[in-house]
């Protein structure tokens, strides 16, 4: 049988899901569906009846998928997590990239490999993008907090913006803390004193 395989990607974040789907479509002629809703996961998967399910290793909903690997599955087809000790490098790469794959029993290894390869590449890309995004968000949040703290000092003590920043920096150095931490403590205290 050479019909196109049906793949379900379980991913609540739409942008991440699309990146993975695009990668899989580039890799071959696959029918790819995304499941985002965690509450009805088992039912959705049963309706889709995919040949292969891809999910982030760290997704808390993975335990729900584990039901598919037991005898009376909603799929009524045995499913196993992809484990192939003869392909140790591939399995290892999948774990490192945070991909877990549930495969319907009997699916041939040579049909799984290109899918996993594509998934690994995309999961790695997604995780890089996520790290960048998190770092940017954290930096922005810190900057905002420091701006608010400067504002508090400027109005409470009549300092200029530069003086306010110098005071924050000096306090942080004296206390061995990060400027953002001092700023956050100041803003919290100022709110309490309002």
């Amino acid at each position, binding site marked *: 049988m050479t019909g196109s395989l049906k793949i379900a990607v379980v991913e609540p974040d739409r942008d991440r899901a699309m990146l993975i789907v695009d990668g899989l479509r580039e890799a071959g002629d696959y029918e790819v569906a995304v499941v985002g809703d*965690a509450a009805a996961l*088992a039912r959705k998967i049963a309706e889709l009846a995919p040949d292969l399910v891809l999910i982030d290793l760290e997704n808390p*909903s*993975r335990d*729900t998928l*584990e*039901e598919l690997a*037991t*005898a*009376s599955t909603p799929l009524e087809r045995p499913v196993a997590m992809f484990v192939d000790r003869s392909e140790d490098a591939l399995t290892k790469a999948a774990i490192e990239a945070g991909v877990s794959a549930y495969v319907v029993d009997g699916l041939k290894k040579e049909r799984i490999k290109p899918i996993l390869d594509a998934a690994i590449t995309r999961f790695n890309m997604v995780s890089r993008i996520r790290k960048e995004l998190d770092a940017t968000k954290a930096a922005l949040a810190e900057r905002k907090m420091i701006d608010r703290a400067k504002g508090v000092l400027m109005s409470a003590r009549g300092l200029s913006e530069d003086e306010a920043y110098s005071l924050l920096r000096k306090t942080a150095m004296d206390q061995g803390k990060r400027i953002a931490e001092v700023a956050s403590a100041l803003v919290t205290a100022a709110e309490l004193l309002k």
Partner: protein
Amino acid sequence: MSLSAIECGFIPLVDSAPLVVARELGFAAEEGLDLRLHKERSWSALRDKLAFGRLDAAHMLAPAPVAMSMGLGGMPMRIDALSVLSINGDVVCVSPELASKMRDNGLPPDLLAAEGIGRSLIAAAPRPLKIGVPFPFSMHAELLYYWFGALGLAAPQELVVRTVPPPLMGEAMAAGEIDAFCVGEPWGSVAVSKGVAELVMPACAIWAFAPEKVLAVRHDWVGERPDAAEALMRAVWRAGRWLAEPGNAMTAAEFLSRAAYLDIGSYAIERTLAGRVVVSESGEERAAPRLIAFFDGAATFPWRSQAVWIATRLAERNGLDRAEAARAGRSCFRSDLYRAHLGPIGADLPMSSEKLEGSLTERTRVASSTGEMMLGPDRFFDGRVFDPETASGARSD
């Protein structure tokens, strides 16, 4: 002396306490171990990382290594339970609507009246009764199947046990995916405080001495790092003994409440350690004797009869050979290593590694390697006694 590193995974639950205490109070360091604890987000992730060697050891649901050793589930592999980390600790919660129907039907005042509470629940519940558990291979699932099975509710026609991650239980209940759930504390009491569910019974009412979590490692790892395995067993056993001192609950709760572990207020944890549960949204608390145990009554001993109970129950539901399942179960509960490593540091050792499960209605004095020890109670709510030998066909009488 440089410490030998052990990567150990856990799920944020009160019963991860022996591992947290072993690290935080230095029991692990005293044994020459740098016990590194990794908080995992699902039982599947924990298991996969253990199986692939990213973790050396794990806080695992007692039925999980038995199931894996039997070849069940998504990751068949030989996993050993070195010791039992905790006894009991789960609670049964139902939706507020179901709770109110149960009250209308009449509910026994005794929080441990498993038969009366079960009958009231069955009378009030829709068919099939859908009940959430954290993992398919869990004591939660085993206890529910046992409880409802003994009361005549047939699975899967009238009873559907579904896996739902504990943080999503409330949502799943609101969406009508489940009518009730069974989770480990403190998450049951936390859901009750939020008004999401009502607590009807601690699961120890079903089986008074259910092995809940075990210290799990790969079978091969024991052979590769025998000294580390021994040191880990000793550190965790000492942590369990410390946890059993009543005066230590507050300190233990403080450790567990930290961001690296449970990341919730220490009061909810201390309440569990003190054997109390929250039963209503208004915060009403009730005492639940033996809600959770870490040491007393040979709590940490990996009884092979417990493993056989789990294995034969799993075999029955999954259509597998009981004798073969019992063999796999027996070999994965390492009472042999427990005797060898913990006997010399003072652990009470029972004369046999198997017992009749459910035969003790009271705390009972029995003979042990050092004289005598206290065991039990370990009764099942329906009074049945489980004989591991006849159950697995090892004895043909």
